[in-house]
């Protein structure tokens, strides 16, 4: 072989390798020809600058393909995991929980390939055709299989978390496992659901778990080895540390909860990672944890290189209703009181909308989103709600709105910089909270809630400057719990509770297009450009749909 040919082969190989992997630059600008991280970019806005699909042609959207994901040990699956063997054709016993085998993840799309998950399962699918490239199945040791938000990507490597608390790295080209590391103890009822977020050479890894009063944490790990770089605990470690004045004792802190079960957002200029923490434990009674219980139910800003807390804002001081603050902290750059500001907005599970200055955590606006909310005595000087102690669970029950599922939950909101509106699906519900554990040291939840009725669900467009709802669409049937995408095509995509994918005018809520799917939209819709064609991709249960427009 002559040297020229050899050189050409070498160069080609290099190009191919580069083309396969995720160019990190994609993570720092709004994606158009890729969806390289959970929210599309670091901001959590879920706004795309693409406008090939727009108000004038949305009526001509057509189905490009449908993919049905078959979880478990299927023919050709790549098998990993520490759990017992599962025979081919059988879904793991762990996977039989109703509703768990649903696409809640937002697929990443990199170089023409979609990567997405269900608990214990990862798929690579051709983004042009919907054909499967590979499927990876993790044999589980257990853990709650309620959902998985997806994968993170670094070069050619993929990362996902499992219900039995492993961080697993796969080769994106083949689906072959590179390594796995244990991040938490499944026997302590930790279960891991977030999509890892890759920032520089850090993998941001969070976890979940509410049943047995364990402390929450967020970790950064090395993308090459999985080695721990830093670990931030959701509670102070010992009495005397900052924040410990909000707990009665060390024991309450070390069993205080504060899970990190959804991915956060990132400001590259400020070098801060923003994440909402989970509720304190025991979940539904606060007798053994008097105080505000920092840093549970808080939006926290962490230095991405050190894991050090830079600021916090607590959305539910001393929460007793399971209203974690895990909902996406959406980064907004825009005007506030005539000044250009770096801000952060969150539609919180407790029923409030919050706007913060993301350089320092100072509150700019707090406003209730739902009319039925009845648990708060108002807002304090810091913009934090003041919980009404009379609405903490009693043995004979207290009627509370919203229910523990909250006014909103994990489905992704969206911010459209062109309308200046923040979009979120809310539920207007009531529950009765009954105290069931009267011990001075309750364990687990300590109380039980029972649904008492619902006024249904609403898609809301909120003015980020005030938190006021500018327009709303009340769903005539059921609640709306799907994720939201907005685009420069002046479109808002989300799902209702009657199996429709719907396109709205983001300026006024007018319905412009809809399609009936095989199930309710179960993830956040996403969009990308491939071969000059804009795709809209959405998950509904075990189905993944791709739509395009014909010009």
């Amino acid at each position: 072989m002559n040297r020229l040919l050899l050189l050409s082969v070498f160069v080609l190989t290099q190009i191919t390798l580069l083309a396969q992997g995720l160019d990190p630059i994609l993570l720092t600008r709004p994606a158009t020809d890729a969806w390289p991280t959970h929210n599309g970019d670091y901001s959590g806005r879920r706004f795309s600058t693409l406008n090939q699909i727009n108000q004038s042609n949305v009526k001509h959207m057509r189905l490009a393909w449908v993919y049905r994901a078959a979880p478990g040990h299927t023919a050709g699956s790549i098998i990993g995991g520490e759990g017992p063997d599962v025979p081919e054709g059988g879904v793991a016993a762990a996977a039989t929980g109703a509703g768990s085998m649903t696409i809640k993840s937002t697929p990443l799309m990199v170089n023409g390939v979609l990567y997405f998950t269900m608990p214990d399962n990862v798929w690579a699918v051709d983004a042009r055709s919907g054909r499967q490239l590979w499927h990876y199945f993790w044999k589980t040791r257990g853990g709650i299989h309620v959902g998985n938000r997806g994968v993170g990507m670094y070069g050619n490597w993929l990362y996902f978390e499992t219900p039995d608390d492993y961080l697993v790295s796969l080769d994106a080209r083949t689906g072959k496992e590179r390594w796995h590391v244990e991040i938490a103890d499944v026997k302590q009822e930790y279960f891991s659901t977030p999509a890892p977020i890759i920032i520089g050479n850090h993998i941001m890894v969070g976890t979940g778990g509410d049943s047995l009063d364990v402390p929450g944490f967020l970790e950064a790990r090395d993308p090459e080895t999985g080695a721990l770089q830093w670990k931030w605990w959701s509670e102070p470690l010992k009495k005397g540390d900052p924040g410990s004045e909000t707990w009665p004792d060390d024991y309450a802190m070390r069993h205080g909860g504060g899970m990190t079960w959804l991915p956060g957002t990132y400001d590259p200029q400020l070098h801060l990672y923003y994440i909402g923490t989970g509720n304190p434990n025991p979940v539904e009674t606060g007798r053994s944890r008097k105080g505000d219980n920092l840093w549970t139910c808080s939006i926290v800003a962490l230095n991405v290189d050190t894991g050090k807390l830079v600021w916090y804002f607590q959305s539910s001081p001393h929460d007793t209703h399971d209203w974690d603050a895990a909902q996406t902290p959406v980064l907004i750059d825009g005007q506030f009181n005539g000044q250009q500001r770096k801000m952060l907005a969150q539609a919180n599970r407790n029923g409030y909308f919050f706007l913060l200055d993301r350089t320092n955590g100072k509150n700019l606006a707090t406003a209730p989103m739902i009319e039925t909310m009845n648990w708060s005595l108002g807002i304090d000087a810091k913009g934090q709600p003041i919980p009404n102690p009379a609405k903490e669970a009693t043995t004979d029950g207290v009627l509370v709105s919203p229910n523990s599922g909250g006014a909103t939950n994990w489905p992704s909101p969206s911010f459209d910089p062109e309308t200046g509106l923040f979009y979120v699906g809310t539920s207007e519900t009531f529950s009765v909270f009954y105290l069931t554990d009267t011990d001075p040291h309750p364990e687990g939840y300590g109380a039980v809630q029972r649904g008492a009725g619902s006024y249904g669900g609403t898609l809301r467009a909120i003015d980020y400057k005030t938190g006021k709802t500018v327009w709303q669409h009340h769903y005539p049937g059921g609640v709306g719990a799907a994720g939201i995408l907005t685009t420069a095509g002046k479109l808002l995509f989300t799902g209702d509770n009657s199996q429709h994918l719907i396109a709205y005018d983001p300026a006024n809520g007018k319905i412009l297009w809809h399609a009936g799917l095989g199930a309710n939209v179960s993830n956040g819709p996403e969009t990308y450009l491939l071969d000059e064609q804009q795709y809209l991709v959405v998950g509904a249960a075990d189905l993944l749909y791709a739509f395009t427009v014909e010009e």
Partner: protein
Amino acid sequence: MPYRNVALGVALVLLASISLTAQTPRAGIGGGFTGRGYPVYDSAAVERGQKAFVSSCGFCHGANAKGGESGPDLLRSVLVLDDDNGERIGPVILNGRADKGMPKFALSQAQISDIATFLHNGIRAASLHGVYPIIDIVTGDPKAGQAYFNGSGKCNTCHSVAGDLKGIGSKYDPVTLQGKFLMPRTAAPGGLQVAGRDAAQIIVKVSLSSGQSFEGKLQHLDDFNVALIDSSGEYRSFARDGDTPRVEIRDPLQAHLDMLRKYTDADMHNLTAYLVTLK
């Protein structure tokens, strides 16, 4: 009861979809499974284990194993969580922990196994938060409840204690009874609550632009479709586009839904206490 116009945005009675959105499933009913699974422990072994625990361990660890003056909470012990059937707990019992002041206990393997079962059962009970038993909800004042029933609650507008509610306190336990008045329509998973007893049936009237109209039991309603079963048993389905056709619904349980925003907790407790007396 008058018709209400859906297009005006008046809320329909909808199902609480708690489990649809909550991160943690309600345990037990199709909601995934815990890290330890949902083992069912032999109740005789739990009972034996409890006796052995109380006599040997309770003094320091508390009779309920949640910790006492000198011993730690064992229901939150990582060692106990990692144990399966006494293989981790056993050596601690037999050897003690001299460094922490815990003496040795010469218990048999069977006793150790029973104590382990008792502890694991306690952990399981704490983790199965969807099925915690409700303790005692009859704390209100029945007289105040009666006054509310006939007064500001306006329950007597539709109900009579000598008629439809006769003996209701014997028919249901208090927890069920309270649930019935808060939201009488039983839950069906995901979406609009349309099925149920005839008395609780949502009625819908669909008026076409031609002037023709159809009325019947609501089967489905979303932004693009409304479906009903008419008095002849015929299923009828209509495409919707905004206000066309005109859709009006009548929910006999609307008052119950409206009350959710009006009850004080005392009203709820008093009304429960009153209804319980209707034997």
